[in-house]
């Protein structure tokens, strides 16, 4: 790509914002246009369900870069704007303000959106998602002492909101369809641990609860109805039941899609002038010998590095081990890898101590690790996932043997 090439980035989230900054860091001199549907420049989403919700971080600290950064670095940031359609032949994107923008290279970083429940009352005021700063603002204004917050979905977002709701003084009830928490993303040991920990902090759970609707008064939610006939009273509800990729624009333009926009190891789509990164990308992960879509900040950053490197002609970044984290109360959960093709789950340490790690193994290879307040297990586990070095299960299960010795 020539130094004067115009790079257009659709989506100003963590992935899109980082790609714009990296292109400048890597020396790209041509124009960059960054198009975002939110009114504010790119910011970190993770604190929305954690530090920000508790008032420990402000809008300035959430911003990836200060607003001036974009003008100073000749990045044309267009807030409150969406891409309507993509014309690959003409290499133009039609925008919601009626204008067209031409690109030499296009980066699709349109992210994912919270999945809405197709049930009655889902449009009542007070039934919320937690995806954007505006969502978080609304939630923070609603919950507090004397209020009851119903959380629909016992995944990581739901549990983080529950912890923050308690920190803000609200009563919190979590409604989960499955019979255990984190059913899609974690093993039973972790589900049991988190449930007990949240209960100790005053959260109530309804497991195996099928939510059938929301009821309200004067357009405002007052309760959640369940299939067993009960109504759980609440002043606000947060729905956290997963996210779907915003890949319609790519689909409509005929790019190859699967569970998101299909890309290669350099984040390039089936059109060589178009890249896709972050939550919207369905990307190869060589250590697991498969392709999938991830929703995490490290994934957004990796995609941004891949696309920016490919565009400026830098060598591709070394392959990464995917990871993510969650903070709840005083618990720090760090997860490395994904539990694909696992034949054994091994717990290191005692969950009752609040400090332990769950290793997911395939033979004697570590596929993933979930570490609670255990940085050595996370850091070393992450290395073992990356270097594919076999471990002794016996030694791994013995917390008296240090992780450095286990991996030696």
């Amino acid at each position: 790509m020539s130094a004067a090439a115009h790079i257009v980035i659709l989506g100003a989230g963590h992935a899109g914002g980082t790609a714009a900054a990296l292109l400048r860091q890597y020396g790209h001199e041509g124009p960059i246009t960054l198009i975002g549907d939110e009114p504010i420049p790119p910011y970190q989403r993770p604190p929305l369900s954690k530090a920000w919700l508790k008032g420990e971080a402000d809008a300035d600290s959430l911003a990836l870069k200060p607003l001036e950064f974009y003008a100073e670095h000749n990045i044309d940031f267009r807030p409150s704007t969406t891409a309507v359609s993509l014309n690959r032949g003409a290499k133009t994107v039609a925008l919601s303000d009626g204008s067209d923008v031409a690109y030499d290279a296009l980066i699709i970083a349109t992210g994912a959106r919270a999945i809405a429940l197709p049930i009655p009352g889902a449009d009542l005021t007070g039934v919320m998602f937690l995806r954007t700063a505006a969502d978080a603002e609304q939630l923070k204004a609603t919950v507090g002492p004397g209020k009851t917050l119903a959380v629909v979905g016992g995944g990581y977002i739901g549990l983080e909101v529950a912890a923050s709701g308690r920190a803000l003084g609200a009563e919190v009830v979590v409604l989960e369809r499955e019979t255990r928490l984190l059913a899609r993303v974690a093993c039973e040991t972790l589900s049991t641990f988190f449930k007990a920990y949240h209960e100790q902090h005053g959260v109530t759970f309804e497991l195996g609860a099928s939510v059938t609707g929301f009821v309200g008064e004067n357009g405002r939610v007052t309760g959640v109805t369940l299939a067993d006939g009960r109504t759980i009273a609440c002043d606000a509800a947060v729905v956290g039941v997963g996210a779907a990729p915003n890949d319609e624009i790519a689909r409509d333009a005929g790019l190859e899609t699967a569970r998101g926009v299909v890309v290669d190891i350099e984040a390039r789509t089936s059109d060589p002038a178009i890249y896709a990164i972050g939550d919207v990308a369905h990307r190869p992960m060589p250590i697991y010998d498969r392709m999938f879509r991830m929703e995490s900040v490290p994934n957004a950053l990796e995609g941004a590095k891949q696309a920016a490197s490919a565009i400026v002609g830098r060598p591709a970044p070394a392959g990464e081990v995917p990871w993510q984290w969650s903070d709840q109360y005083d618990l720090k959960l760090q997860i490395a890898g994904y539990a694909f093709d696992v034949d054994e789950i091994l717990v290191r340490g005692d969950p009752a101590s609040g400090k332990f790690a769950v290793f997911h193994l395939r033979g004697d290879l570590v596929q993933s690790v979930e570490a609670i307040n255990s940085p050595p297990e996370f850091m070393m586990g992450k290395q073992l996932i990356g270097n594919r070095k076999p471990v002794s299960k016996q030694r791994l299960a013995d917390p008296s043997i240090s992780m450095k010795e286990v991996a030696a």
Partner: protein
Amino acid sequence: MAKITYIEHDGTEHVIDVKNGLSVMEGAVKNNIPGIDADCGGACACATCHVYVDDAWKSKTGEKSAMEESMLDFAENVEENSRLSCQIKVSDAVDGLIVRMPESQH
């Protein structure tokens, strides 16, 4: 406000005025200085904001928490003066601070 000098592994220097209350990591990231990745945004979860603190400043940058110590223990190229820059708060006391970056954060 504190003047902080960030020195990349290749010797490139960046002198930045950083607001009190931010972390040394945030001062670098918000000014698009290469070499401090800070993948987790300051949650002390990733050890990708590793820096070396010049000896003269070691006492003024505070003590490492157990979490920071533990994360650093498994980072690459760790030295006695290694810190995670997300855990160093900027105040008048660190005006003039010099930090150097490792070759890589990953």
